[in-house]
C-alpha cells in the first residue's frame, strides 16, 4: 500500500510523516514518531487514554486517521510542560497524588487542560462530566477531580 506524506505541526514543531490510509493518528504518534506519551487503552474511543488536541479540539487520536492530520496542529502530553516548568495541572496532579499507575494520566491532563481553556471556573460536576470520557481504574477519580479544581483556582489567580 503506498503511503501518504503528511505535514503537520506537533507541539509547535513542524513534523512530517508517512502513513497508510487506514492508520490511526494514535498509531502514527506512538509507532512512527516514537511519541509514546499518548497511550492506547482500547483503540475504540471508550477510554480517553489517547486524548490529544487537534486544532485546539479535544479528540481521541485512535478515532482520527493519520491522513486527517494534514495541515493541522496537534498538541500531545509531550508538549504540555515548558522545558523544566510543568504546567500547573501537571504540578497539581503530583501534589494531590492524582495518579497511581499513571497510564491514564496523560489523557486526563490533555482533557483537563482543554476544559480549563474553555471554562476557567468549573464546578465539580462540570469537571466530572467533561472528564467522563477518561477512564481511570486506580484512583476512583477523587484526587484527579481535586487536582483539576485546585489547578483551576491557581490559574484564575484565586
Amino acid at each position, binding site marked *: 500500500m503506498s503511503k501518504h506524506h503528511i505535514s503537520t505541526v506537533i507541539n509547535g514543531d513542524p513534523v512530517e510523516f508517512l502513513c*497508510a490510509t487506514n492508520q490511526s493518528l494514535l498509531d502514527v504518534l*506512538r*509507532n512512527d514518531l*516514537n*511519541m*509514546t*506519551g*499518548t*497511550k*492506547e*487503552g*482500547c*483503540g*475504540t474511543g*471508550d*477510554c480517553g*487514554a489517547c486524548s490529544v488536541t487537534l486544532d485546539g479540539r479535544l479528540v481521541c487520536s485512535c478515532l482520527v486517521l493519520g491522513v486527517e492530520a494534514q495541515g493541522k496542529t496537534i498538541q*500531545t*502530553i*509531550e508538549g*504540555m*510542560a515548558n522545558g523544566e516548568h*510543568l504546567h500547573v495541572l*501537571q504540578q497539581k*496532579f*503530583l*501534589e*494531590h*497524588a492524582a*495518579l*497511581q*499507575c*499513571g*497510564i*491514564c*494520566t*496523560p489523557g486526563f*491532563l490533555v482533557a483537563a487542560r482543554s476544559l480549563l481553556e474553555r471554562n476557567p471556573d468549573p464546578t*465539580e*460536576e462540570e*469537571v*466530572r*462530566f467533561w*472528564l*467522563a*470520557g*477518561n*477512564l*481511570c*481504574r*486506580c*484512583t*476512583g*477519580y*477523587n*484526587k*484527579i*477531580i481535586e487536582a483539576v479544581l485546585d489547578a483551576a483556582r491557581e490559574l484564575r489567580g484565586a
Partner: protein
Amino acid sequence: MLTNTKNTEQVFKSVGTSPIRPDGVPKVTGMAQYGADYSLPGMLWAKILRSPHAHARIRSINTSKAEALPGVKAVLTSADLPNQNFDYIGPERVAVNYWHMTRNILAREKALYEGHAIAAVAATTAAIAAEAIALIEVDYEVLPHVIDVDEAMHPDAPVLFEDMITRGIEPAPTKPSNITKRLEFKVGDLDAGFAAADEIVEMSFKTAAVHQGYIEPHSCLARYGADGQCELWSASQGHFVVRAYTAKILGMEIGNLVVHPAEIGGGFGGKTVVYVEPIAVALSRKTGHPVKIMMSREDVFKATGPTSGGSMTVKIGVKKDGTLVAADGVFKLQAGAFPGSPVMNAAMCAFAPYIIPNVRTVGFDVVSNRPKSAAYRAPGSPISAFGVESVLDILAQKIGMDPLRLRLKNAVKAGSPTPYGPKHSHDGYAETIQALLDHPEYNKPLGKNQGRGVASGFWFNGGGESTASIHINEDGSVVLATGSMDVGGSRASMALMAAETLGVPYASVRSTVADTASIGYNHVTGGSRVTYATGLAVVEACNKIIEQLRLRASIMWDVDVKGVVWEDGFAKPADKSVGEFEPLSLKAIAAKRAVTGGPIVTEAAVNAGGQAPGFSTQFCDVEVDPETGGVKILRFVAAQDVGRAIHPKYCEGQIHGGVVQGIGWALNEEYIYDKLGRLSNAGFLDYRIPVASDLPMIEAILVEVPNPNHPYGVKGVGEANIVPPMAAIANAIQRATGKRLTELPMSPPKVLAAIDAV
C-alpha cells in the same frame, strides 16, 4: 480524612508525609515507559490467533500460508513449546500447575474458551502480522460448551477435561466432571449452634465474573540472543515471577532470562501471571529478532483472567442480643477454563471478621468455557462477603439492632479464633467500625427513595520474599533499589521509610526498581505485601548501612565503633568520653570511603511473616429511581485499618480506588455471553466501569492501629477496601426500596424488576 492514631508516642519526620513520588514527573509528562512503550531496532510485531469457539477439539493447525506471506518471520504454535508435567506446585491456596499454564498460553488438544490463544505470528509490521493470522487454517471440532458455574456443576454438563476427577471428595468420584476440587473448613458444632439461635437466615446469592479493568493492555518486548540470553521488558506485577513462569514455559534456565520492569498501567492482581511474555520470547528465539506484542482491548477481555463468578448459599444464626452463634457457607466459584478460582480464599475470609463458635465453609472450584480466572484485589473475599454481609444486614433488621453494632458486638481482635486455624494476632477491625459509628454523617436522616447500607471486609494480606539494596553515592545521596514493581507509588513509600530510618531528607533518597539480574528475588507486588515486606527489607538494609556508616566514622575518628552513634542522619560520638568530633554527614563519610573500606553498599533480604490482615468497614447512601431502577451513589465512607500510613495520600488513593471498583462490581460490571459462548461485551463501551460523572467524592478514613511486627507499624492497604462495597450497596438498596437483591450486578433492569415485583 480522619486518622485515629493509637500509638502516638513516635513522631516521624518522613513517614506520614505525602511527598511527590520519584516517578511522578516522568508520568505526568508522558516520558515514563510502560510495557508498550519500548522498541528496539529490527523489531518485529506479533499478533495472536484466537479461538472463535467456546469449546472445540483442535484437529489440526496449518500455518503454511501464513509462513509464506512476505514479511512473516515466524509462526508459533504449542508444538514449539516443551511439554510440562501435570503437578500442583506450591501451597494449595496459590498452587501453580504448568501443565495448565502452558495450555493457556497456547492451546494444545482443545480450545477451551472463545479467545483462547491458538497460534502466533511475528512479522515486520503489525499489519502484516494481522493479515498472516487470518491465513492460519485451524480444523476445529466444535463441542457443546458451558459458561455458568451452576450449569457447569450439573452432571450432564459438557466436560472440559475428560480425566478431571474432583479432588477433596472421599471416596473419589468415578465419573469426570468440571468440579476440580471440594474443600471444607469446620469448627464447633453447627447443629447445636443453630439450635441456640433466635433468628436464622439462609439465602442464596450469585455474583458475575468481573475483570480487573486495568487501562493498560498486556504488552511486552523480548530480545532473544544467539547465545541463549534473553531480555524481556514487561509490564507486570512481579518481574521475578514473570521470569520464572516464562523460563519454565520455554524450557529455559531462569538465569538466561533477564526481565526489566516496565512501568505498569494497572494490575490489581491480573498481571501476576503471564500471557504474552512466553510468546514474545519464543518468537524472538525463533526469528533472532526482538519481538513486541501488545494485546488489544478485546483480547484482554476475551482472554485474560477476570475474577470468578460465584454461586453461594449463606446461613447465619444470631441470638436476640446480637451474638452470632453459627454460620454455614457453601461457595461455588467458577475458575474459567483451567482450575484455580480463589474459592479457598472465599471460604477462609467469609466469616473471618467475626467471632463465631460454630462455623463451616465449603468451597467448590469449577471449570467452564471462559478465560482462566486470575487474581483480582483480595481474590475471593469480595465474593463471599457479598453473601455474608447481606445476610448479616437481614439479621440486624430482624433483631432490631444497628448493623454496625451487630458487627462490633462480634468483632474479632487479637487472640480471636479464625475458622481456618490460626488465631487472629491483631486488633484493628473494631476500630474501623467505631470510626463509622463516630462519623457525623452516619446518623444523618435520608430522604425518599434513599437508603444507607453498611458492610465490612477482611483480607489476609501477604508477607513473603523481598530484597532491598542500598548504596551511598560519592556525594552522600542514597540509592535504594528493590525488586518490587511499583504499581501505585511504592517507590515513594520505600524512600520515606529509608529517609526515616537513615535520618536523611526524602529528597536525598533515589528509590528505584531493579531488574532480575540486578537484585535478589522479590515476590509479586500484590497481596498488599510491598509496604510491609519490602519495607521490612528496606529498613533492614538501612540498619545494615547505618552499621557500616558507624564503622567508617569510627575509622575516620580512629575510635572504637562502640563509641559512634547514628542520629538524625549523622555519625556522632556516643558521649564526651569518645572525643570532641563534629558530626559526620553521609556526604562527609562517603567522601572518605576509598580510605575507609571502599564503596558503602549493602543488601538485605526477608521472607516476611508477621503481617497483619486488612479490615475495612464502609457505609454508603444511595438513591434509587423507582421508575427506572437506576441507583445513584450519594455518599460513600470507607474506614480501613492501615496500621500506619507511610504516605497518607497513597493510602487514601488505594481506598478510593478499591471502593470504586466495588461500586462497578455492584452495579454494572459483568460478562455477557451469547448462545455460542462468545463474549458480547469485550470492550469498555459495554463492560461498564464507573466513570467520573457516576460518583461523588469517596471519603476514606485511615484508622491507624500499628502492627508491632513492623518498625513503622505497617499493615497492607491495597485490597481490603474492595471487599465490602457490593454488600454495602445491596444493603442500602434494600433500605431504600424494601427489596433485597441477591444477584450481582444490581443493574437497573434487575433493580426495577425487584421494585415492581409484588
